[in-house]
């Protein structure tokens, strides 16, 4: 437990008899109280992390003893009641906030965000309704927003799935993408896919995951990283299951695709007319991703924008991800297979 505390960065002493889910106010007022009494908090590291304006992020998970994650649906794992997740954001070496998710019922998740004190000794619950706008300055003239619960739900909630993002077969695969933007080292003691399988914490998982760790099927290494980036940064809304699927753009990586060009992002974006009208481009000339043409690629235009109106993702970031833009621009300009003939 002491190790887990250090990992979470909490120096405060665990409050004895802290309120448990269903027995008192929940989420509790301090981060320290979210820690389970039983051991087993483990770090993990997704291979395609979500861009958060350059924040250094650490993540932990705790699964109730003896319980397993149901991986029957490889795209939407179901977590046991009692599961807890933490994600800590630091800027310039200082802890700013820790976000918390706990499954308290079969389809009930508690969301909370804890803001770190100036002396970095404790973190207290942020207002659920408003979050904390402009909590800290992260760059000249740019301030980081601690999200409200509704902000959190805007990305995390989806149709018929648990709300956890970034903890999946692809994200935890041992076949780590060397070109993934902002890739992090896997911390010691992590609970990645290998450990989940070895420790029997994953029920109904395909057996081949053991010998063939999941990876994005793609034509080139750069394409693999680009598609993986979309998966980690865009697919929580742009998939083929959630309500936004009506727009017909899916940027999730399909682990069952063996032909690179059958990846949903290729099928639904490349040379597909964009409803988003790129300023300065004739109305019928904008494409979601235009083969060889960065300026006509609405996905890139919106990744580059940080104006609160046309930017993508629409929240959670105030600075464009230049590393990802470089990667995906090069892929679009030099490697993207044209599908214009088939449209």
């Amino acid at each position: 437990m002491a190790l887990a505390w250090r990992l979470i960065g909490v120096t405060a002493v665990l409050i004895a008899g802290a309120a448990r889910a269903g027995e008192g106010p929940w989420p509790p007022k301090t981060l320290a109280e979210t820690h389970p009494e039983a051991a087993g908090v483990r770090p993990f590291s997704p291979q395609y992390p979500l861009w958060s304006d350059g924040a250094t992020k650490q993540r932990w998970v705790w699964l109730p003893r003896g319980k397993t994650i149901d991986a029957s649906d490889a795209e939407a794992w179901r977590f046991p009641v009692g599961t807890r997740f933490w994600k800590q954001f630091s800027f310039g070496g200082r802890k700013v906030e820790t976000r918390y998710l706990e499954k308290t019922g079969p389809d009930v998740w508690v969301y909370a965000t804890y803001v770190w004190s100036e002396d970095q000794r404790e973190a207290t619950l942020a207002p659920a309704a408003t979050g904390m706008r402009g909590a800290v300055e992260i760059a000249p003239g740019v301030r980081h927003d601690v999200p409200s619960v509704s902000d959190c739900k805007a990305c995390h909630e989806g149709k018929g799935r648990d709300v956890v993002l970034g903890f999946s077969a692809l994200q935890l695969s041992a076949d780590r993408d060397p070109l993934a933007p902002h890739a992090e080292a896997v911390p010691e003691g992590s609970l990645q896919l290998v450990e989940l399988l070895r420790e029997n914490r994953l029920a109904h998982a395909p057996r081949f995951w053991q010998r063939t760790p999941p990876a994005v099927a793609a034509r080139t290494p750069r394409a693999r990283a680009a598609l993986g980036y979309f998966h980690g940064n865009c697919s929580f809304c742009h998939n083929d299951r959630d309500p936004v699927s009506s727009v017909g753009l899916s940027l999730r990586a399909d682990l069952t695709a063996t032909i690179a060009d059958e990846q949903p992002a290729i099928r639904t974006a490349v040379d597909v007319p964009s409803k988003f009208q790129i300023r300065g481009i004739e109305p019928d000339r904008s494409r979601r991703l235009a083969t060889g043409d960065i300026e006509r690629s609405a996905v890139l235009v919106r990744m580059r924008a940080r104006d609160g109106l046309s930017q993508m993702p629409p929240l959670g970031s105030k600075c464009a991800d230049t590393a990802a833009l470089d990667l995906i621009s090069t892929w679009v300009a030099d490697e993207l297979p044209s599908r214009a003939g088939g449209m």
Partner: protein
Amino acid sequence: MKTAKITLTAFTIALLAAPAARAAGKKDVEQIKRGEHLVKVGLCADCHTPKKMGPNGPEEDISKMLSGHPAAHLVTQAADKPAGPWAIAVAGDLTAWSGPWGVTFTRNLTPDKKTGLGDWTEQNFIDTIRTGKKLGKGRPILPPMPIAGIQNYSDDELKAIFAYLQSLPPISNAVPEPIPPAAPTAQPPVAAKK
């Protein structure tokens, strides 16, 4: 014999189903009528329908009913802030609004698949109104859309409005994206990894 039995069964099902289908159709018509009433009372066309000049001044162009800011009317920048206490500038046909939030172009609400709401589901529409965000997750719905007032509609009312909008003739009109207010571009605080 077997074929005759199947045919008879199918005929029986068709007979039984016909009144249900008629009832569903009637319900749809009632829902659309209710939606039309709500759209008229809500004055949606004031901003979402382009205007043309008539004998008594500008009037709604019914041939472009609820199709939003005309794509042909190019607006490339925000209006200068008016002098005095005024904060907002409005195009003559009320389909473009410029203010501190940037420039809003009223959307095409007809069911045109490429430029309107033709690819939206009823749930998309409800999510948009309830959250004040496009599709429930995207950019904020901008002024002067009275989103806070419309959020008071019940789900049934919103469904009726959506049913009415989907019953309109689709009009192809690619409304431009809103123009954000001028602001310096934020730079990332750390050097990006290659």
